[in-house]
């Protein structure tokens, strides 16, 4: 049971309050006419499935209901940081050393 920080509510809460929304920063192609089948399958199904640090979406379903993003190490399951939807993905270098520990 993970411990998750909601950047909107600014609280840490147990995982059961949240729903994971899968890999983050996958934009839906905006113009269907100009989207190839390859682009579409990339958006629909292709996932990095990284062993290591990933950006993923979470939604605080039993709280504010907002989607936000998190960086998490898929080996340790430790979070490195949480950030709001629309904010750029932090790079590992910009994270404080102790983040996620």
């Amino acid at each position, binding site marked *: 049971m993970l411990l998750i920080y909601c950047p909107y509510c600014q609280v840490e809460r147990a995982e059961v309050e949240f729903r994971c929304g899968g890999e983050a920063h996958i934009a839906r192609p905006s113009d269907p006419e100009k989207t190839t089948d390859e682009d579409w399958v990339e958006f629909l199904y292709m996932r990095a499935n990284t062993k290591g640090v990933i950006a993923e979406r979470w939604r605080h379903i039993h709280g504010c*209901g907002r989607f936000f993003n998190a960086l998490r190490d898929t080996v340790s399951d430790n979070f490195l940081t949480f950030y709001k939807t629309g904010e750029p993905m932090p790079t590992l270098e910009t994270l404080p050393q102790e983040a996620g520990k």
Partner: protein
Amino acid sequence: MSQPFRTEKGGRIDRGEELTFTFDGEEFHGHKGDTLASALLANGVHLVGRSFKYHRPRGILSSGSEEPNALVGIYRNGDQTPNLRATQIELYDGLEAISQNRFPSLGFDVGAVNDLLSPLFPAGFYYKTFMWPKSFWDRVYEPIIRSAAGLGKPPRTPDQDTYANQFAHCDVLVAGSGPSGLAAALAAAETGARVILCDEQAECGGSLLSESNASIDGKDPANWVHETVARLSSMENVTLLPRTTAFGYFAHNFVALAERVTDHLAEPDSKLPRERLWQVRAKEVVIAAGAIERPMVFPENDRPGIMLADAGRTYLNRYGVKVGHKVLVATACDTAWQAAFDLADHGVEVVAIVDVRETPPDNLIAIAEARGIRVEAGCVVTGTLGRKRIKSALLGRLMTSGQVASGGQIDCDALLMSGGWTPTVSLYSQSRGKVVWAPEKGAFLPGISVQKERSTGASKAVYGLQACLEDGYAAGEAAATAASGKTATITYSSAYGGEAGSGGILGALPHDRNASRVKAFVDYQNDVTAKDVKLAVREGMHSIEHIKRYTTTGMATDQGRLSNMNALEIASGTLDKPVTDVGLTTFRQPYTPTTFGLFAGISRGDFFDAVRKTASHEWVVQHGGVFEDVSQWKRAWYFPKPGEDMHAAVERECRTVRESVGLFDASTLGKIEVVGPDAAEFLERMYTNPWKKLAPGRCRYGLLLNDAGFIVDDGVIGRLAEDRFHVTTTTGGAPNVLATMEDYLQTEWSDLNVWLTSTTEQYSVAAVQGPKAREFIAPFIEGIDLSADAFPHMSVKEGTFCGVPCRLFRISFTGELGFEINVSRRYGEMMWETLATEIEKRGGTPYGTETMHVLRAEKGYIIVGQDTDGTVTPYDAGMGWAIGKKKFDFVGKRGLARTDLVADGRKQFVGLLTKDPKIRLEEGAQITTSENPATGTAAEGHVTSSYYSAALERTIALAIVKNGHAREGQTLYVPMPEGSIPVEVTGTVFYDKEGAQLNV
């Protein structure tokens, strides 16, 4: 009082309170404070069980939760709980225990023939045989293996006990209350940090409760425990949990504890739960799990009467029980010597101390000599005799050549052994930390912390009372500071005595016996011997995980806590590789076996899954309605009148709706209020249909796809105002539709100004359907002109129902004139009772989901999830009309254009009529072109819905058929076991094709 092995005084038992218990029906006595094991030993009973494979007689080996042999069943309330450790069962008056895995009795067990046949049963023998003849595996071999395997008998009746669950947060969780754990808890608590201290035993104190040779601050250790526990109990920031095992260490410092609340009580308060699950989020964890003593691996090391030395000492000092009258002590380390001294001081004859080491410490030898105890240094036990209890032991002298010379035979009725100590690193390992091999300690120790935890004391091989106390205080202080930033000045208690000593050995001991004839057990419960481990290595099992799985060593109920290190050393020696290259198996949760009921908690019956009821529920119950489960909802299925079966009731309901009027509870359909300046634009993007031009006051059927292009939901959507829509969804789909909408709104189209609110449970909805629907509802509705012109099909208006506000939809899922009245849930019962009471007077009827299904099928309306299955596109469903062709984009638009979704030969939604109008097809039946299809023929499709239609006076069906739209009029077949049923492909609308009934 006949407890021949009870000491005259001493121990922590209450000699004033005698308790009666039975073991295999025989009556015995013990005292309050005893465990079942100590009480049995006090009565001279060592034989308590039979081993798993060879059915060898086994006695009590340990005094803790790692006990592999003394597993018993406890009878209570007419059923039994199997596999409980006698060493952990607290005695109560009237306790009934039975031995396991023996037939017909513990003393005479026919299964013991396995021991004689054991040359045929080496590790993994079953992989090499039982393959011929093939059919014998299922019918002969496996049933025999199964009945021979297993330990206790499973419970047979539903568990009547209750279980509780508690979430908790703390600064510092301390697991274990031995000297280090108590010191850690005290140090952390004194800073003001919130502390939880748990221990699996009934009393805090751990090894201090059986310490005879030490003092703390000049006091008896037990007194120090008493004072420390009293101090902790008095502190508001401390939660003390005895009888509580920290059994699982999960991600993000989440630790699960199992508290046993009533098992030790003779007559538990029925209000108490049997066990309580604590789910603790700790800022810091201190693991003070101690160390356990290792058995020595010598031939016949499993006879009843052979016990770990520290267990022998614990039974003596804590429980006042002598494990024998003539005790032999075999050891490789100093601590067992103290057990010998304590026994001697209680008048027990210690026949010898046999130490593997050539030169045990002089001071110990001197103490032994002072007590007249024979000491054999550089000696090992090479075998034992005695069937149901050890009678004597064979000794062997270690030669410098590495050989063993016979050292004679020595009589004894108990043998205490110690191979040294193994730190308990289970919880650390569960926290995903990697253990590190410490060659100088001969042990794996906790390595780098990956979670916020620290081990202390013996669990990281810090031994000796003073050292453990100091280490515990320091760990507690550090944890508290890390968790809460608080500090305090702690006065450390100081100890005298309780020295750690030295020594220890791993692996099998050398002996002079015929290696192929003797068994030296590594894993007692699973009957794994040193030979088995070597055989596995010879057969190519070089990873410790392979050895474990092939021999089953370490897979018994102690999870290898006693056996792992010895098995590892034997494997390492056989492979001639360092232990680190062989590896240690992972420790998995739970630390000790944990009751299923504890996990399930209150989740039983109606609490297993929420039951959602609509406002009509009680009325339906009172009027004999039958329910069906649809997701979590209870929906009225049909309303049988006396003497009616389901078929008759549904037929009558259908007729009544078509001819008169029917009342249906539609409250379970999902409802979402979509509000905001961009509400229409949002729906335009979500649903396939166009929404911008829909006038306020009008409704439209909406079809929702996923971005792959397949139908996922549908429902009528009404526009109440320019910026307000009332969206309905399927019953089961409601949560997903809202979640999907939120997802797109928040993460793709954050430019849109829209709010989404679930209103499913805010409205009660009554559907009134049938040619007389208008006149039926008219008396109750105010503020809405119900005439066909003012309020045509697919309209919505706000008014009142019996004076309360309502949203009135003119929509139909039956093909008849229909209205759906939405009122606030608080008026739901009023609305339903008003309408239901009135409708029968008017010749109408309430109807359930089955009638709803039939009526909609007559009209060819799909039910998402029944007629579609996630692989159906709008075009497949014949609903191309629902797609806004001019729309730039909507969810699913691009997906729908993919090659396979526009290919020929897709399965399409059609009607089917059986040639024989009386035959009703089975839903799910397959459809073929051939009347007698060969096995393996690909189906053309399947029947999705099938009913008897009262209106058509025949059966009807809906189906998904390959190229179905082009096959209208063709004959296909539905092959059934009894023969093929010919069917004709038709359109999907069977009743009122023109829709005349809707527009009245």
